[in-house]
């Protein structure tokens, strides 16, 4: 009796183990659903909160604004000057601007820079001037900057922005209440100009074969915060946009945005919005779920790309909180128009507010998602869905890992003329990791190879990034093809050998069979899922949006796909995986935005080479290898 009860106990234990192993995948799919729904809930009004000024020292809008009608007239005069200057070639233009600053009475200088990437060469000249605050000891500074080129493609120059800078220089010069020096920077080029300036300011200027950055001759103290102005053309605007996403999805302290929003609502009323093409903010607006969703999606899109949406993004690399104010005209929008007069008030008030800071901005949030100018979701509220997504990968990996060593050896025990199979302890089938590790290692090597190929100038004629990409796609497909065919041949040989062996010795008394290790694809899929979990969760700490986009793209294919005995189905799965591979995504993006494929590729390469964005290395060195391994996995033999 004792034996029988122990037998059934063993049996029950085994069944429980199986139950856990086989229900875990179902649970993991449920977690995917929860994670998706949760992500969709993020922008909802009842999930996000209203922003507030967290740093009390800021006191937005408390100071009396000095920018008056006279200054407005000065600003308009400067606009004329800038218009004339903009006709000059870059060097003379920078010199003319420097002279304008010098005439206001500020110390001013220019900085040359040259930059060679693997595809292009860029030269430029930055102009900068420093207002030394009468009461400061020169240890802290604020920056007001304007890029020469506007993000608005309709205008050639950021005329109003530069004019505003000059006019404000004049206003600040007569003020005596500044506790921080104010640096005015007019940067050339896209973002590389400001980056060269910032590098030199922090004493990191490079003089190598690829980069040349001139040393700065006048300096001030540690930069506390920066405001970047982008007001293209010479007209008026009706909406003020805020851009804030920096390099690799870094964000400025939320108080920066809060301050401007607070001022634009009270001291100097201006219609204000996030970014540029969606609806501006009104009190009733956040009630509209799709609008919030749209805005959050916009922000996440910019954050995921990792390329800054303006010059402010470069400041963030140096731990300087910064945003870009962007004036634009939205035809048909009923908000009142504003000109340089109102703009002067907004910018001056913001600078006066930042001037109040006693220490670096640290109070409010550094990790947030915005679904409107006044609604945010903080890290504690947005991290759970991506963690759940990661856990769903891990659960399935764990279940597959368990399955790959189940089917324990069974010993037939004869008791009371009834044979019962018993599981023997520590006699599980062993795992054969060789194929899986080889595939994973090879795909990582190809990924790194592709990355190396794309970012090195090999110097053969007619070399473009696209050709290199095509070459590496060729290498990858050869790799996949050879791996898969080797696996199939090996599988067939093993099977034949096994059949021979089985027919050779048929010993019925042998009650313990030799166990065949689990199929290679199971182990490979375990690796793929575990690596994906690792990738998505660690990436979410760095760039949440990119992690969300990648996680939601790969979760279902990677979890669901497996080799099928029907060749056709395997091929379909492989096709889907090719579609979500980096080249597939590249072509899809090019088609969606109807842009040139080569252009998008060079954009990604340039982002990496100029600013050090991680999009290209992440996609090449982590995303693509896992994807390649998954393609091999679905094409492996089934058994």
């Amino acid at each position, binding site marked *: 009796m*004792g*034996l029988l009860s*122990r*037998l059934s*106990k*063993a049996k029950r*234990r085994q069944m429980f183990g199986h139950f856990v192993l086989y229900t875990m995948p179902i649970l993991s799919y449920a977690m995917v659903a929860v994670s998706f729904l949760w992500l969709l809930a993020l922008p909802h009004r009842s999930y996000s909160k209203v922003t507030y000024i967290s740093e009390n020292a800021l006191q937005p809008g408390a100071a009396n604004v000095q920018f008056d009608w006279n200054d407005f007239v000065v600003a308009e005069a400067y606009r004329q000057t800038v218009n004339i200057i903009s006709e000059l070639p870059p060097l003379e233009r920078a010199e003319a601007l420097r002279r304008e600053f010098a005439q206001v009475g500020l110390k001013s200088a220019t900085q040359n820079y040259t930059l060679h990437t693997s595809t292009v060469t860029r030269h430029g000249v930055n102009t900068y001037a420093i207002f030394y605050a009468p009461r400061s000891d020169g240890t802290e500074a604020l920056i007001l900057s304007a890029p020469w080129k506007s993000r608005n493609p309709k205008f050639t120059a950021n005329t109003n922005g530069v004019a505003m800078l000059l006019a404000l220089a004049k206003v600040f010069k007569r003020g005596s209440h500044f506790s921080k020096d104010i640096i005015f920077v007019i940067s050339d080029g896209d973002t590389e100009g400001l980056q060269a300036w910032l590098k030199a300011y922090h004493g990191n200027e490079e003089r190598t074969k690829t980069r040349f950055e001139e040393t700065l001759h006048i300096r001030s103290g540690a930069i506390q915060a920066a405001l970047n102005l982008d007001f293209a053309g010479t007209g008026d605007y009706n909406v003020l946009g805020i851009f804030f996403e920096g390099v690799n999805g*870094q*964000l400025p302290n939320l108080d920066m945005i809060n301050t401007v929003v607070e001022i634009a609502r009270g001291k100097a009323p201006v219609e204000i919005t996030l970014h540029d093409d969606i609806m501006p903010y009104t009190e009733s607006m956040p009630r509209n779920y799709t609008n919030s969703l749209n805005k959050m999606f916009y922000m996440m899109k910019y954050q995921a790309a990792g390329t800054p949406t303006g010059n402010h993004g470069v400041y*963030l690399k140096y*731990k300087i909180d910064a945003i870009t104010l962007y004036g634009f005209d939205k035809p048909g929008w009923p908000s009142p128009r504003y000109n340089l007069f109102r703009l002067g008030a907004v910018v001056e008030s913001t600078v006066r507010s930042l001037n109040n800071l006693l220490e670096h901005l640290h109070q409010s949030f*550094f*990790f947030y998602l915005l679904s409107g100018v006044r609604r945010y979701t903080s890290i504690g509220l947005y991290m759970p869905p991506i963690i759940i997504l990661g856990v769903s990968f*891990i659960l399935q*990996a*764990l279940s597959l*890992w368990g399955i790959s060593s189940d089917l324990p*050896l069974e*010993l037939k*025990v*004869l*008791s009371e003329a009834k044979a019962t199979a*018993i*599981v*023997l*302890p*520590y*006699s599980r089938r062993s795992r054969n990791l060789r194929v899986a590790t080889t595939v994973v290692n090879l795909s990582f090597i190809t990924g790194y190879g592709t990355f190396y190929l794309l970012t090195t100038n090999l110097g053969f004629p007619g070399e473009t990034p696209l050709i290199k990409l095509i070459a590496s796609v060729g290498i990858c497909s050869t790799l996949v093809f050879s791996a898969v065919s080797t696996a199939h041949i090996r599988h067939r040989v093993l099977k034949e050998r096994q059949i021979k062996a089985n027919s050779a010795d048929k010993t019925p008394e042998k009650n*313990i069979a030799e166990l065949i290790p689990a199929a290679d694809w199971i182990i490979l899929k375990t690796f793929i899922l*575990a690596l994906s979990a*690792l990738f998505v*969760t*660690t990436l979410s*700490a*760095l760039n949440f949006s990119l992690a969300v986009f990648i996680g939601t793209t790969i979760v279902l294919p990677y979890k669901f796909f497996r080799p099928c005995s029907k060749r056709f189905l395997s091929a379909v799965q492989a096709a889907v995986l090719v579609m979500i591979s980096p080249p597939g995504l590249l072509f899809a993006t090019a088609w969606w935005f109807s842009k040139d494929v080569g252009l998008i590729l060079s954009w990604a390469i340039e982002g990496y080479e100029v600013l050090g964005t991680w999009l290209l290395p992440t996609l090449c060195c982590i995303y693509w290898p896992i994807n390649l391994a998954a393609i091999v996995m679905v094409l492996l033999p089934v058994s």
Partner: protein
Amino acid sequence: MSTNVVPGGQKAANTPSNNVALVFGAAFALRLGLLNLPAFPSILADQVEISTPITSFKRLSEGVFLFRNGVPPYDGGVFHQAPLLLGLFYLIINSPPLVNALYILVDLAIGYMLLQITAIKERDSTSEKKIMQYGDKTEESGMSGLTVASLYLFNPFTIVSCIGKSTILFSNMAVVAGIWMGMKRNKGLAMFSIALATYLSFYPAMLMIPVVLMLTRGDIGKQQQKRISVQCGALFLACLISLFLLSFVLVDSWSFFSGVYGTILAVTDLTPNLGLLWYFFIEMFDHFRSFFLIVFQLHVFIFAVPVSIKLWKYPLFVSFILCAIMGTFKGYPSIGDAALYLGLLPLSSEIFKYMRYTFLVVNLFLYSSLLAPIFWYLWVYVGSGNANFFYAIGLVYGIGEIILMIDTTFAICRRDFEILSPPETSGDPASLGWDREVVQK
């Protein structure tokens, strides 16, 4: 084919020597290549997970510079490494290729010693009684020496620790040499190596016990065992004292005691690392400090005796577990410590099939080694994270190490049980022993 001859005159592991050459050649080439990349070694050398205050190459260079210019190197609180290292690098630090070569060779030497240890262990185990398993099979033999060596040489932790020029490597070499000499029953060299390891990083002193266990293993009388133990104690002390005297002669002051061992024991340099102590002592009020300091340091040593008593039959495993305890609970752990105990673990490869949390441990190590630099970046460079982020990853890493220790200890006890009561593989079903798993768990 296998004509590898160890100094003792015996034949080495019967691995084809061209395979050995291949593995060591590849390890050599890999290290040489990585050390000659432009920025890579200095980036690694700056990682707090790789270089701690007591193993950083940068600090060593600073010490050498001070020494060369006649400034007492231990003044100023930057340099905390043993004087003899100072002496060694004083000679070669001006020639980077020599320094690189030294690091590569020491790392390869550890690999070679692991290969030899496996060979000795295999020879030992031929005389042991085999465990019978179900189906009348004997237990499969453990990993070959070459596998053990390549698991050490190609472990990413080992590689980055070597490329980052962490001086923990020298202490690791002394530890492995001590174990090798212990297995070879060479009292003098074994004790010298352990004394050297103790001299370099203090904690390996507790490896005295497993090494003495190795020296006295086999059929030796009680009297003989006692005699050897006493001799070992004396040898160890003699070696240690002569090392101290040599150091005194070199730097001409005893200040290295407080500079090296004072820093190790009192955890005075609170530069963040992967360990569990720095955060405690930053947060703690000063009047609690000495109490917790004593508790934490005792905690490291307290396991040495009970573990050695319980597992006296497996001195190799004891040395693994003691190294793991050191690597987890010491004041300045780095991944170089992990490289050591992960290198020693495959020496007990016969326990692997009894381990239950391999997947979990591997994942914990992977996550912590990826997230630690990321959170460090968020804390120190971006400024959006803070110290708690990094310390949390230190905790995760610690949990991984602790689970590994628990799991391996369970596995060796379980295997011990299998040896004590081998399962019946024939006869009456009731006595087959199949239900032991049920009873056990």
